[in-house]
């Protein structure tokens, strides 16, 4: 073999150098096990979030009040399936199969964004989810386009490009609701009230309390801190709410001159309750996914069997 045989230390030094020089790590490159595991954890969690996130919107798909809104919502949910798929593929390059990831999800070992454990209760929720939940996700994802792992970064580039309509779609629904009847305005405010804090929680715990944050930052898996991204999002969203004529719950202007806002204390007890499985919909979401997976088993089996029959050579 002509290949270089390097010691673990040399490999690590080479790896660190690449990270420092912003050279992407690729699937066949050497990487520390912890980096690999951290990526698998984060990318699969991200993929599961896209997939579970189809459910609260799916809840209103067949009650969409116009054909236009129905096809848009359907296309959006389909994008989420596609994005989950891109992310599963990125994770697969690290040596885990999609099936293993799904098994971990079903066993409760892999997490997904807690925000999807809240119910979607009225049509304006389709607006609030697009505007706030996708808005928060996009804030995060834009920074992840620069993540150090090549396949993850490339998946994020594609996802960000495709997602650009999602937030606009949500905001447009809110806008239409606010132009409508008193009932519609009530629904819009109600949706904002319910989704605001869950959206803020999507950025994760405060930097000081975030278990995986420092390593992730060091390896440039994550490029900006939770609190920094959260503040960015809050300050983007408040003027958008004002334009709609909606009131964001509990924010204060901390800097009158520059118009910088701060959200008031997040109820982290609630956050951890939901993360640990006791949100309003955790069980429902997982059961939905398990049922689809189990109902589909005979279909997957017959597809495999049919292929084997026709390619016996």
């Amino acid at each position: 073999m002509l290949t270089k045989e390097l010691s673990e230390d040399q490999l690590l030094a080479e790896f660190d150098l690449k990270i420092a020089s912003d050279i992407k790590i690729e699937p066949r490159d050497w990487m520390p096990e912890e980096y690999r595991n951290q990526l698998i954890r984060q990318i699969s969690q991200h993929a599961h979030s896209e997939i579970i996130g189809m459910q609260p919107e799916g809840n209103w798909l067949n009650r969409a009040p116009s054909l236009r809104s129905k096809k848009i919502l359907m296309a959006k949910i389909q994008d989420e399936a596609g994005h989950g798929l891109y992310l599963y593929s990125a994770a697969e390059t690290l040596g885990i199969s999609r099936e293993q990831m799904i098994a971990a999800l079903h066993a409760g070992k892999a997490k997904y964004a807690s925000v999807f454990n809240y119910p979607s209760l009225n049509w304006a929720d389709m607006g609030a989810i697009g505007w706030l939940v996708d808005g928060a996700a996009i804030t995060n994802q834009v920074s992840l386009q620069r993540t150090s792992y090549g396949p993850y970064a490339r998946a994020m580039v594609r996802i960000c490009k495709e997602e650009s309509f999602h937030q606009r779609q949500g905001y447009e629904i809110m806008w239409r609701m606010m132009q409508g009847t008193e009932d519609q305005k009530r629904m819009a405010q109600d949706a904002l009230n319910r989704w605001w804090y869950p959206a803020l929680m999507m950025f994760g715990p405060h930097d000081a309390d975030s278990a995986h944050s420092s390593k992730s930052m060091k390896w440039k898996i994550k490029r900006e801190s939770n609190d920094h991204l959260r503040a960015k999002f809050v300050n983007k969203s408040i003027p958008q709410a004002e334009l709609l004529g909606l009131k964001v719950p509990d924010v204060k202007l901390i800097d009158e001159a520059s118009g910088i806002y701060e959200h008031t204390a997040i109820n982290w007890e609630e956050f951890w309750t939901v993360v640990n499985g006791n949100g309003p919909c955790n069980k429902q979401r997982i059961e939905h996914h398990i049922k689809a997976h189990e109902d589909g088993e005979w279909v997957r089996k017959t597809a495999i069997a049919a292929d084997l029959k026709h390619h016996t050579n």
Partner: protein
Amino acid sequence: MNKEDNQGQLWEVFLQTKPGMAFKHVGSVHAFDKELAVQNARDLYTRRGEGTGLWVVSSEEIVAVTINEAEYFFEPIDKKIYRHPTFYNLPEGVKNM
């Protein structure tokens, strides 16, 4: 071929975005056979009308140079600058070259 994985096998997808252009790798897709692979690739990667041509290749059929080989595979070629047109000094005034 991992037939046990109930999510199907992995296929690499190459898309041509305009007639005459090169096919470019866009990602991968799971499928149980060739026909489903080409359908699934179409349904996923051309949702926004990006395609005029589509190839799928079973991921297992891809032969790749490993990163450890990269140095002696690529670097020597990098030095043969005489293969590039800008290497040559031509007299002023020569046309259509």
